[in-house]
Structure formats: structure tokens, C-alpha cells
């Protein structure tokens, strides 16, 4: 018989009661779909008849018989390896400029942050399609300079670059985090080093970067995860095809085509789980190497 007024028991349960709505939400809306998709990835499921068990067939098809899968992987990894370093360097560069104590810092910070808020939206993707089109602003400007370029979004070698630029343009959120990190670096370091005759560049290499390294790690991992999951820009700019010639066939876009275009939910689930492993591999790699290059203040 449970004593309703047993203080000890209640004091341990009450926090969970308050958390209950979120916990139930997590189990029902995240946990359950998560495990369902794991189960579905071993089945052949077309949305209508019940899933039937095919074991590892989806994974085998993916890795042995589907050239489009490797194309999607290639496009996505290229995108991540090029766009993330570019974006982070650009964000850090601007954060350093803004950290010089210019007037109207708040305004700059807000303006530069806007693209991060809207960059993933459909409207911006449509705008991008226009800007980098055959008669877009970019080509018109290049035309004045006497450079004749084909349509960026319509040419296989350039289409991915328009998407990379779109990603770099969203430098605002890592920039704001870098700015906060720069504010944390004690001024004494710089004063002491300049007395010892270190120039700006030396200070940047030996003080700023090491002190910022935890922030770089955080930004890096966040951006890598979000880049692997990029979908909207490629979907809109290529009209859902991943074209021209599959040059913008992002992993998520190919997953979507399989799931909702072909109704091969089993295959799409298998792709989703493979993506999870791929992202885990990359973040794991960064964490393992982080011991070498990330310095936390308390390590002396």
C-alpha cells in the first residue's frame, strides 16, 4: 500500500512528474519512430502493404548495386568538406574584425545574423536559383567584367558551388558564437605578448586560436552535422531532381526520392541509418583528434 504522504518517496518522484509531458513526448514522438525506422530498414515496406523482413538486403543493395547512392555520398561529403571550413574561416575572420571595438557592433551582429535565420528557407533557395541562373545577377555582374559564364545552377561543375556559397553565406550563427568566445580571452595575454614583441599574426596563432579551440570544435561539429542533413536548398534549386546530372544529389535528397518518390520506405530507412553512422564516424574522428588541438583554459 503506497502511502500518499510519504515525503521521501514523493520528493524523488515529483521532478519526473513535472518532466512527464516532455519525457512522454520524447518516447512517443522521437524514441518510437527512431526504433521503427531501424526495424523498417531491414524490411521491404512500400507504405501500403505491411513491411516484410528482408534482412540486410537494403544495405547490400545500397553498397553493391546502387551507383546513385555513391554519387549522393560523394556530393554530400564534398559539400561538407568544402563548405564547413570555408564558412568557419569566414565567420572567424568577421568575428575578429567586429571584435576590434567598432561602433554599432550590435547592428552589424544582427544584420550578419539574418542569413542564418532565413538561409534554409524555401524563399531564399528560390532567390538563389534566380541569382545564379543564366541571366542572374551574378552572371550579369561577371558580364560587365567581360567574363561569360554559363548558368551556375544549370551546369554540373558549378551547381554545387552555388549551394556551397549559400552555406557560407549563413556564417552568422558561428560568427556570433566566435564573437562571444573572443570576448572571453583575457586581455592580459595580448598585453604580455606584445611586451615580448609578438606581432598580430603571432598573437593570432599562439593566443587567439588556442583559446578559441573549444569554440571551433563546437562550431565545427554543429556545422558538419547540419551540412550532412542539408536538404531544402538542393531540393528547390534542382526542382527536386538533384540535377544537373546528379551533381547536387544530396544524401538527404536521394533518401527523400527513394522514400516519397518511389515509396521504398525500407530502403530510405536503411539510408537514414547509414547516414547516422557516417555522421557518427566524422564527429568521432574530430573528437578523437580534439585531444591534440583543443585546449581548455583549466589545463594550465
Amino acid at each position, binding site marked *: 500500500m503506497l502511502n500518499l*504522504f510519504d*515525503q521521501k518517496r514523493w520528493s524523488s518522484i515529483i521532478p519526473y*512528474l513535472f518532466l*512527464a*509531458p516532455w519525457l512522454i513526448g520524447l518516447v512517443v514522438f522521437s524514441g518510437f519512430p527512431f526504433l521503427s525506422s531501424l526495424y523498417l530498414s531491414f524490411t521491404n515496406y512500400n*507504405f501500403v502493404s505491411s513491411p516484410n523482413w528482408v534482412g540486410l538486403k537494403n544495405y547490400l543493395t545500397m553498397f553493391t548495386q546502387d551507383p546513385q547512392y555513391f554519387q549522393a555520398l560523394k556530393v554530400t561529403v564534398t559539400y561538407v568538406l568544402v563548405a564547413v571550413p570555408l564558412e568557419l574561416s569566414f565567420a572567424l575572420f568577421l568575428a575578429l574584425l567586429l571584435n576590434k571595438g567598432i561602433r554599432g557592433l550590435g547592428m552589424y551582429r544582427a544584420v550578419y545574423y539574418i542569413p542564418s535565420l532565413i538561409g534554409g528557407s524555401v524563399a531564399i533557395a528560390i532567390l538563389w536559383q534566380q541569382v545564379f541562373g543564366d541571366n542572374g545577377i551574378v552572371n550579369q555582374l561577371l558580364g560587365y567584367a567581360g567574363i561569360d559564364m554559363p*548558368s551556375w545552377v544549370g551546369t*554540373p561543375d558549378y551547381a554545387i558551388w552555388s549551394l556551397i556559397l549559400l552555406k557560407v553565406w549563413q556564417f552568422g550563427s558561428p560568427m556570433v558564437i566566435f564573437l562571444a568566445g573572443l570576448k572571453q580571452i583575457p586581455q592580459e595575454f595580448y598585453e604580455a605578448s606584445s611586451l615580448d614583441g609578438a606581432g598580430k599574426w603571432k598573437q593570432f596563432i599562439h593566443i587567439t586560436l588556442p583559446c578559441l579551440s573549444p569554440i571551433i570544435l563546437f562550431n565545427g561539429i554543429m556545422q558538419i552535422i547540419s551540412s550532412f542533413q542539408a536538404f531544402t536548398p538542393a531540393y528547390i534549386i534542382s526542382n527536386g531532381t538533384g540535377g544537373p546530372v546528379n551533381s547536387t544529389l544530396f544524401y538527404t535528397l536521394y533518401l527523400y526520392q527513394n522514400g516519397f518518390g*518511389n*515509396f521504398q520506405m525500407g530502403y530510405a530507412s536503411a539510408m537514414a541509418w547509414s547516414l547516422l553512422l557516417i555522421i557518427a564516424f566524422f564527429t568521432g574522428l574530430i573528437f578523437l583528434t580534439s585531444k591534440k588541438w583543443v585546449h581548455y583554459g583549466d589545463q594550465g
Partner: protein
Amino acid sequence: MKLKKFLLLFMSTILFFGLAACSSKETKSGASDSKEIVELRVSWWGGQARHDKMNELFDLFEEKNPNIKVSREFTVENQYAEKFTTQAAGGNAPDVMQTSSFFQFDFVKRNMMLDLGTLVDSGDINVKDLDPVDIEGGKVNDKLYAISLGHNITGVLYNKTMFEKAGLELPKNNWTWDEYVETAKALQKSLGKDAWATEDEGGVYRGLELFAQQRGKSVFKGDGLGINKQDLTDWFTFWDQMRKDGLTPPADIQSEQGDKAQEQSMLALGKVAMISKSSNQLKIYQGSAKDELAIVSYPMDPNGEKKVPLIVASLGISAKTKHPKEAAKLINFVVNDPDAAKIFKGEHGPQASKQMQEVIKPLLGEPENKEYAFVDEMIQSSKPYPSMPSNSTSVQKLLLSTNQAIAFKQKTISQAVDEFFSQAEQILNR
């Protein structure tokens, strides 16, 4: 102290159940009697002009049937099937949905559509006045699943003004492939550098299907491919020659075009003189084009099969609907009510009912008259659209990217054909 604990517990319980109550919404369902308002969900695809038309149509239906409320869901064509199938999988498909020759085989295979036999027998849907070709077009495996809203035949929409400027005779129905190429070359001479005779259609499934049918085949056969490597090689070679002769836009401009809306299409903007589309698209393109447009049949092989496939746009009823009678009433209203016809005005091509065609005849504009004349002539030698396997949409996408790979010179034609066949078979066998 005890009281405080009890209050905490009490409040957290309230909070929890309060949240739960917020998120659940009671939905009405079950048998409908005459007093109760029945809600019918209807979905369709199209552009803004069509949405306005459909809304007007269903407002009138609600006026005539005060006990039925029509809630409307609409989207663009290339996302329609994805949305509808997802809804059906989740068990909340709309009661009535638009479908067409391109979708119905897939929808029926997935058990999403109701066999309309009993509703026709009971007289809820009156098909007496409908043209037999339309009835045939709504059948899958000899059972009626879809009621035609109108029928179409693929033709070449062309810019009449450009033909006149070039001093060319207007093309005639049943023109040959050779005449098509000669015409394109003559057009190109007068168009100069910033416009082209035709879009590059080597990646368009619809064109390849007609090309295959003229050889007595079809792109798909059962659950596999119905064409052989030679057929596809001939098709790609034809379009490659068109590109080399400068009769199509460069590859980058063509791929940027994608499937942009009619008002942003190269035909409407005067950048190309010809594209192949369903006949009912003529009025829609004309709505956003400066020049005068017209329609002619797709090029023919003079020694080949002459029957053209009929494309039917239609309405069907969801297999899981709770209101089959009301859904049938709505469909019957759209296809057989003169007031509905006056609003609808043959949006999807000439309507199945000859009587309705008579009703709207005085209301039609110039583009519709051209379209009707074209369809009436071509329908004499038509046949139902062949069925397609599941996953056919992916093969259609593959055709597009294969043609692009040739256009961008990333692959030779024979390489591209070999890869197309191995990938298409792999997709269809998955």
C-alpha cells in the same frame, strides 16, 4: 509541509493532463444522417488559376448541398503524388482526389482507390452520357476507378507568331519526324541566337513513350522495360543531332529550366518555338504568352503505329472513405451538372459528357477552340494510356539525368544507354 507536497503533486497532475487535453482534438466520423453536416476532403493539383476555379466550383456545390462541407487541399503537380501517398499511408487520405493516366495505376496498386462499380450501379454516379474512351481511360484491370474530368492528347504546342515570322507553313497533324526536323531548322534560321526551335526533349519520358509506341512498344512492359537498347540509342541519337544542329537551348539553360511553372517557361517567354505537352495546357500557356500559340500532333513515324494514347485527368474516391455516397455526389456534380461545367470550362480538356461540351461551347475562347479541334481530330485514332509499374517515376528521373549526361558530354550515347538499362532494371526490381 504535507500540504505543500500535495499541492505540488496536484499541480503537476493538472499540468500534465491539461497538456494532454490541449493536444487532442475530437474528430467527428461515422454514419451521416441528413441533419448532420458531412465534411468531404478533396485534393487536386494545378496552378493558381485552377485553384480559383476549383474553389468557385466547390462553393457552388456547398450551396446546392447545404449538408456537405467541402474542405480543400491543393498543391503543385510534381509534389502531388508524394503528398497524397503519404496521407494515404497515414490513414488520412482525402475522400475525393484528382488523378490521371500517369498516377492511377500506381494508386490502384497501392489499394488507395475505391472500385466505383457499386456507386455506378446504384446510380450515384451517372456515366450514361460519358464518352466510352473516357470510361475506358478511368479503368484499371477492367474495373472503373476514376471518372474523367476531360481528355487530352500529347501534342506540340508551338508559337504561331514565330512560324509566321519565319515565313513557314503551319504544321499539319500527323506530320513526320523528318518534317519536324526540317521545320526546326527553318525556324532556327529566323530565330537567331537568343531563341531556339524546340526544348531539348531527350529526357522527357512522355516523348520517349510516344516514340516507343510508334514502334509498337512501350517504355514499360509489366514490371520491367518494354524497349530495347537500340530504341533508346535511336532516341538519344535523334536529340543529340538536334543539339548539335543548334536547334535546342544549350545544356545548362535547358537543365535550369527544369519543370518551372507555365508562366516562367521558355515557350511563354518566347525563348523556344515548340514544346510537347498535354493538349489542355495550350490555354494555360497562352495565358502567360505574348505571342499566339497553337497545337499540332506529335511527330509521327510514317511507317509506324498511328494510334495515340489518350491521357485522362479524373476524380477518384479514396478506398478508406467514410462518405462514399457524398463523394459520389460531388463527382457526379462536377461531371454532369451544367452549372458546374460553366465554371469548370473544360480545364482538363474536352469533358467526357458531350452534353456538357455543348453547354460550354459558347463560353470558350480562341485557345480552347484550337485545343478542341485538335483533340476531336486526333481522338479518332486513340487508345487508352498503357499502365506503368511502381517506381516508374524514378526511371523517368533517370531518363532526364541520362539525357543531361549526354548533353553535357559526360558520357557517350552507348555508355549512357548501357548505364540506363542496368540502373533502370535495378530500380524496377528493388
